[in-house]
């Protein structure tokens, strides 16, 4: 019995027969409404390009200051990493640690792992640590919070605006783009990559 004709709903245990979807179409569970599986608009090539673009924007968002303040000649600019260090020095190490993980290390790891997995699959071979990489990706997914940090930047800007002169930096625009690209990248269903890996193992071209 070809069991991968079946799909089991993660949220209510209902079983369905898989059917071919149109690009962009989503199959929902008829019982609880959970998204069972989808057919993505982008293929492996586009996904890889997206990963590369996300990596470039990640670098830009991290080397340039996000915002700078000007208070009557006194000037201070902050990068993301600068915010982590300043929080650490301010005596609240757990906050610094948490911010570093959620805004820096998890997004960075996601980008690297996607690149690793996709480059391997595109070469027609399952990478050596594929299984571990996929597990790390799925564990990190809920904890990657670039979009929350983006809103945080905006709130901070509005809070300071009026008291001091706030100058948005290149890092801000880069981070905004990073938020969008990362959201697009992580919307990709990881279980689909397992299906692709299986096809690659059987020698099919993807």
């Amino acid at each position, binding site marked *: 019995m070809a069991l991968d004709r079946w799909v089991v709903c993660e*949220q209510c245990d209902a079983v369905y027969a898989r059917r071919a979807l149109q690009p962009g179409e989503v199959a929902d569970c008829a019982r609880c409404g959970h998204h069972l599986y989808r057919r993505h608009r982008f293929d492996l090539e586009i996904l890889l390009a997206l990963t590369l673009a996300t990596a470039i924007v990640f670098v830009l968002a991290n080397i340039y200051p996000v915002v700078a303040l000007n*208070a009557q000649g006194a000037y201070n600019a902050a990068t993301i990493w600068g915010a982590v260090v300043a929080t650490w020095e301010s005596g609240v190490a757990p906050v610094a640690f948490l911010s570093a993980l959620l805004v820096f290390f998890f997004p960075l790891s996601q980008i690297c792992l996607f690149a690793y997995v996709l480059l391997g699959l595109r070469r027609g071979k399952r990478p050596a640590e594929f299984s571990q990489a996929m597990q790390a990706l799925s564990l990190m997914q809920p904890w990657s919070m670039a979009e929350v940090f983006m809103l945080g930047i905006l709130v901070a800007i509005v809070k300071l605006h009026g008291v001091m002169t706030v100058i948005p930096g290149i890092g801000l625009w880069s981070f905004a783009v990073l938020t969008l690209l990362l959201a697009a990248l992580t919307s990709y269903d990881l279980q689909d990559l397992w299906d692709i890996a299986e096809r690659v193992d059987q020698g099919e071209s993807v």
Partner: protein
Amino acid sequence: MSTAIRTATEMGLIGCRRCGHVMQRPETVEGSSCARCGAPLRWRKPQSLERCWAFLIAAMILYIPANTLTMMRTINPFNATDDTIMSGVIYLWVAGTPELAAIVFVASVMVPIGKFIALLILLISVQRGSPHDRVGRTRMYRIIEKIGHWSMLDVFVVALLVALVRFDLFGRVEAGGGAICFGGVVVLTMMASLSFDPRLIWDTPEKT
């Protein structure tokens, strides 16, 4: 419910949580692993209710100091002001940015409290074996899973303000213990909702 729908448990199937592979359920699920990706197979998330309760109670206890302790201290040459989450929201409201006050209030107060209530409803209804509105409760679970991390907003705002506002002449901003506690609350509520297995909502039999 519809008679056409059958569950994996009824059909003797099991799906892998990590890769989605569907296979025949082995005699003993415990200790078996997925044929495709090698992840350990589980019929349901292990100790789902116990773990969810533990994280939830810890989060609710920590939510008290998160609100009473100082989130952020603003120091200028003349005085120092301590802000908690609520006083920060009120400050934003009075300062003429009610939209911003609303955003921070939703993220820091409504989302965590809503999540506490939703998880309590889910846990208690599952423990009582309630057959009521399973679709609605599953949807509630999906909502709290999606919005939970937005509560981290205020913690990030404090981190940014600390990094930006540090002038010798005009003053500086420091983070307080409230920020640590609040970050802890968000992590704990996320762990609680990740431990909860929504399939438990569907496991109880229909009332006849």
